[in-house]
């Protein structure tokens, strides 16, 4: 699984590289774009995701100790928090940005100064958060499977590898967000 995560690092790595380069080319536009995002929602979502990571870690612990009920509870909690994150992301933020006309290629109505580069920022915003959300969705799928398997008592202290591996994946997606949050929301400065 770690090896797979290395693949994932490079997957996001390519995007981050592109982001870094354009940010340096068009600093002011990217900072302006960053200020247009809602930092409160971003921060709240970060907290939600961190919570889910905690519950996931506790879930793995429960599996290690063979506490079936606890495991299912924590997995369900993780799942719910994950869904909450996606809900906030898609339902609140994306919808808001779309309605405001900040969706490049789909609904772009903003034509202030330097809007072309601002659009570029929003491209990256949507690509990065979109691919992240896609990973979350995959994670939700994995969690659902795990919950069903856990409910049927498939795991024991001797055999809980799937839970641990899924945990790694979930934490990784969390880490990606830990970097996305400052890069997208904070880097423009809020002062």
């Amino acid at each position: 699984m770690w090896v797979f995560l290395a693949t994932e690092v490079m997957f996001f790595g390519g995007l981050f590289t592109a982001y870094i380069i354009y940010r340096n080319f068009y600093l002011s536009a990217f900072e302006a774009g960053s200020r247009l995002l809602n930092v409160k929602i971003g921060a709240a979502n970060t907290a939600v995701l961190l919570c889910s990571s905690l519950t996931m870690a506790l879930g793995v612990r429960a599996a290690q100790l063979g506490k079936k009920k606890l495991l299912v509870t924590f997995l369900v909690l993780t799942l719910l928090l994950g869904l909450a994150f996606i809900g906030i992301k898609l339902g609140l933020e994306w919808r808001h940005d779309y309605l405001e006309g900040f969706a490049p290629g789909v609904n772009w109505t903003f034509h202030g100064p330097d809007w072309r580069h601002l659009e570029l920022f929003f491209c990256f915003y949507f690509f990065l958060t979109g691919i992240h959300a896609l990973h979350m969705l995959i994670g939700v799928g994995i969690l659902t499977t795990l919950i069903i398997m856990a409910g049927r008592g498939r795991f024991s202290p001797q055999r809980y590898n799937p839970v641990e591996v899924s945990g790694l994946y979930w934490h990784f997606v969390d880490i990606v967000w830990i970097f996305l949050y400052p890069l997208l929301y904070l880097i423009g400065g809020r002062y």
Partner: protein
Amino acid sequence: MGGGREGNHEMGTAVVEPGIESRVHYLNASYGIKSWLLTTDHKRIAMLYLASITFFFFIGGAAAVLMRLNLISPQGALLEPATYNKLFSMHGIIMVFFFLIPSIPAVLGNFLVPLMIGARDLAFPRLNLLSWYVFMVGGLFTLYAVIAGGVDTGWTFYTPLSTTYANTNVISAALGVFIAGFSSILTGLNFVVTIHKMRAPGLTWFRLPLFLWAIYATSIIQILGTPVLAITLTLVALERVFHVGVFDPAVGGDPILFQHLFWFYSHPAVYIMILPSMGVISELVTAFSKKRIFGYSFIAFSSVAIAVISFLVWGHHMFVAGQSIYAGIVFSVLSFLVAIPSAVKVFNWTATLYKGSVSYQAPMLYALGFIGLFTMGGLTGLFLATLAVDAHVHGTYFVVGHFHYIMVGGAVMGYLGGIHYWWPKISGRMYPDGWARLSAAIIFIGFNLTFFPQYMLGYLGMPRRYAVYAPEFQVLNVMSSAGASILGVGYLIPLVYMVWSMRYGPVAGPNPWGAKGLEWQTPSPPPTENFEETPKVTEEAYAYGTEETQVA
């Protein structure tokens, strides 16, 4: 060279064994389409790959034949430029992503990795089957792109041509490559874990056959490089769908950034093709010299070194692309570095012959052919790493000649050599050695006739990807096309006799070459579970000095 030396067949020494048909092995363990399509046996999956990539190879090859035919006349003998452009794009995409990259890893690697380490199967058999399906889905997308009208961006998908200006099936082709990339990642992952976790007792890292070192290095590249290509092609596809520009200069994007991201994968990808081939050659040279490999650890570490350095050199594709001169110098010096481990390998193979007992069955001819062609291909790489010379030959037929020497002269020779060497293990039967030697000789000659003129064309300044060309280039182009027809015949012959041998070839026995290595200690074809009991390894790799007790 040894093409005419007949009468040295090892086949005669094949030990009389109960007929293949009377024993249960992986090929006859069960029958029916379903038993193949749902198999998790690494050997059967290898066969699935073999069939699919052979199919892709001949599609890509057909495109090449049409292109060479067209280039007989400066005006273009039979194709419209638009058709020609689609052909070379298809040739590139299919040959690179659907033949060369999966060739040795997915076919020979799948078949041999568990056998060589004394394991029952790969670490994740079901994942392995999944990779094949993923690969096929990718292949179907690409074939769809071809049938629905083709792609004309070249296999490099350079922006903004691919994102904005081309109006062909870029998206489905890119998607096909993207999906096939995941197959490549999963296969690499499987190999890495298998080699780490499932080696037989006693099989330490420095007792591993060099083929496995090469496969391991290749897997590293696949795991760390492919995702970057995936994300890059995703961006291209998204850009086409939503008309937003990450690489489009019209909105401030940088088309050269695409090239950086693309070559970050696609240069190492060249080593995905050639490294396994080098591994095969290391096996062949020792087996047919009956001698330990010269400088085992140097060859092993040079594989890893190549894998690492290969990620540092991609900028040499962009010396004249508008990249800064400073970056050009950095990439130039790094590119020279990668030449060193390759040279070390060639010298070591050559030295292995020294004081050996060398025989010339077909696989060895392929191996020697590989060394020759790879030397010529590798050395011309120096021209391209040299900034001032590259500023002249970049993007010309010199480059085409160079990478065909590496990828066809190198990778395909190695692949064919490997297939010939392990064919008795795979099928349990021998192919006619005389024919095989003949085809090795034909391929060697045809290959040089095809691609050597291209070096000269390149220095004369003929750009690549030209459907029509200036008349001063005609003589060499005709030579190249003539060579290509010989080469084509050379590739068809093995197809015929290999298929023939599956039914009519003489029974091979477990170890027809008298070679070392765990894979030769089990019957041919191997039983589904590979080994009746897990073998214990007590000797170094290629222990040809010891008594040949294990040979059945």
